[in-house]
């Protein structure tokens, strides 16, 4: 990401802050600041990369409820400063939203983050927000998306219509960052199918409803793919790089969860056209929770999901024929301690990804989080191959206010 774009964002944030000064008396501030340390177990592939990375994050949140109504205004800027990687040092407006609540409908205007889906191992259906990939390779951190969203809320379900102006490019680690492709991705040269490029207006529609134990969502998206293809090229110095290519796509999505007793049954499926051959992908499985395990008040969840993509080995995703199994331990203690461990196993090769996430509150205001990821056995054709030296342990201490 260019410095100018970073600065622009910073200026917009500063502008937004000033514009809100009058509001600020009536609303409330919350949010967090955190310190993060990443340690990599192996020497890097490239001499530019490092073994350890410190970074600091701030994400304040301003919320103002308009008196006498259900309407609200929310502003959530985000900034990270990374010790080594200027691409990971970035700022964003996660939310700058005005919500207007009417009779059986809502208008939600501005920059927002939202989530669609039910599965744990990957989020196929979730398409509105661009992934903030420099934040985490789990694809769960998102950039704010400008939108006009109208929600119609009826007995037959909720219908959400979206007009999405202002495309956000995916963030990628810089040359000094770990957990990146080799060669690196050069975001400066990103290209688009649409002649309007980032100004192409995207559209989406989603219907969702809950019927007894079933939660169902159907969605349709037309616009610039959030997931770019990465094409080989060279940078200004003649060095090889990968260049993001953003195609115009149609994507239909289905997400279903059946909740019954201790069982959660989950399915997400998509069909996408416009990005090479039309393809389908799906994730399905279950989560079963044992309550009060080991004679304690802890809950233990067992998660199993199958990940499928009909492009098979031609898919740019590592998950075409993979199985994820995981355990989720919820301590139900005062500190809200949680542990999630999982492994994704490629059924066609020896590739395996291990994942551990744990967190615990310290006192009333601090939270300590630990994340461990490791990658083994990926053949050179697997997209995960690029992370073969990037096993890491991450510790984060956050102060909430």
């Amino acid at each position, binding site marked *: 990401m260019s410095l100018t774009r970073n600065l622009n964002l910073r200026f917009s944030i500063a502008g937004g802050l000033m514009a809100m000064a009058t509001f600020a008396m009536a609303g409330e501030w*919350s949010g*967090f600041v955190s310190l993060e340390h990443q340690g990599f177990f192996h020497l890097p592939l490239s001499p530019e990369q490092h073994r350890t990375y410190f970074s600091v994050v701030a994400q304040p949140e301003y*919320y103002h409820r308009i008196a006498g109504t*259900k309407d*609200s205004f929310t502003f959530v800027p985000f900034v990270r400063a990374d010790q080594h990687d200027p691409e990971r040092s970035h700022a964003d407006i996660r939310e700058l939203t005005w*919500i207007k*609540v009417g*009779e*059986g409908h*809502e208008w939600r205007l501005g920059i927002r*983050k*939202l*989530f669609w*889906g039910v599965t744990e191992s990957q989020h196929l259906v979730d398409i509105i927000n661009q992934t903030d990939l420099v934040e985490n390779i789990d694809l*769960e951190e998102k950039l704010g998306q400008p939108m006009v969203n109208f*929600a119609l*809320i009826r007995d037959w379900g*909720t219908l959400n219509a979206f007009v999405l102006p202002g495309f956000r490019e995916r963030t990628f680690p810089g040359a000094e960052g770990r957990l990146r492709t080799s060669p690196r991705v050069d975001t400066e040269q990103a290209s688009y199918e649409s002649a309007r490029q980032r100004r192409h207006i995207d559209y989406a529609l989603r219907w*969702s409803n*809950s019927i*007894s*134990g079933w*939660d169902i969502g159907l969605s349709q998206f037309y616009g610039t793919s959030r997931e770019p293809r990465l094409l080989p090229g060279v940078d200004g110095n003649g060095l090889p790089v990968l260049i993001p290519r953003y195609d115009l796509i149609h994507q239909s999505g289905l997400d279903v*969860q059946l*909740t*019954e*007793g*201790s*069982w*959660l049954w989950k399915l997400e499926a998509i069909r996408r056209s416009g990005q090479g051959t039309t393809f389908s992908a799906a994730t399905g499985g279950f989560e079963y*929770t044992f*309550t*009060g395990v080991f004679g304690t*008040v802890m*809950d233990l969840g067992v998660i199993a999901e199958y990940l499928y993509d009909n492009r098979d080995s031609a898919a740019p995703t590592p998950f075409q024929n993979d199985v994820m199994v995981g355990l989720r331990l919820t301590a*139900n*203690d*005062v*500190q*809200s301690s949680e542990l999630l461990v999982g492994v994704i196993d490629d059924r066609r090769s020896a590739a395996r990804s291990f994942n551990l996430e744990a967190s615990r*509150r310290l006192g*009333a*205001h601090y*939270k300590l989080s630990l994340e461990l990821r490791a990658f083994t056995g990926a053949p050179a054709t697997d997209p995960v191959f690029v992370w073969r030296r990037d096993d890491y342990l991450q510790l984060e201490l*956050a102060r*909430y*206010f």
Partner: protein
Amino acid sequence: MKYWIGVALVLFAAPVVLAETPQEKGLAIARESDRLDQGFGDYTANMEMILRNRQGEESVRRLRISTLEVKGDGDKSLTVFDDPADVKGTALLTFTHKTGEDDQWLYLPALKRVKRIASSNKSGPFMGSEFAYEDVGSQEIEKYAYKYLRDETHEGKQCFVIERYPVDKYSGYTRQMVWICQPEYRPWKIDFYDRKDSLLKTLVWRGYRQYLGKYWRADEMFMQNHQSGKSTLLKWSDYRFRAGLRDADFNEASLKRAR
């Protein structure tokens, strides 16, 4: 009403009971108490939870609760967490049902994700407290079988002592012994027995107040766990009955913008 304090009112006794079995008399008491609390419509309230461990160390949570009475079914409720700060904005939407499983959705603001959660967690601690989800949920008559035990003088009041047995197989209890005291037929105490039928916890109500000239709510509910030595004090404030809540305040859209 029933959310949270539901326990407080569910068991008002009919003063005159004809010759009947202990089971019939227990059920009649439950029915009458439920009838007495009908018609509250809706309410909002604030709650502070003070969690204390065996060593006396305290930890505080703050929540806001909205409840809507639903005719012919269990109540709907929306609980928003304000404290501790890392869970601020987290919200829980519950549709209680007289029979069958309750429906629960949890909104996680950091991910913007709504998760439908399994109702089998009902025996689990609510926010790490000594209250289980089933203790704070809507106390529908149909969720228990009943048995009248005896009359007893408790803290200077004339009380019925009845026992109730959870119908749901996911309940953490074999039985609960409930003291309902005259002259106003308010519950004063519950002893909870765990799955091994050992005394697990005792809940007592303190500082009752009457709202709308009819509905009794306690300022404090104190739960002592006899096995772990931990306790939780719930302090209620700012009750507003008939706050004008409607069905539209209890759906996915309202859950996401609850905070």
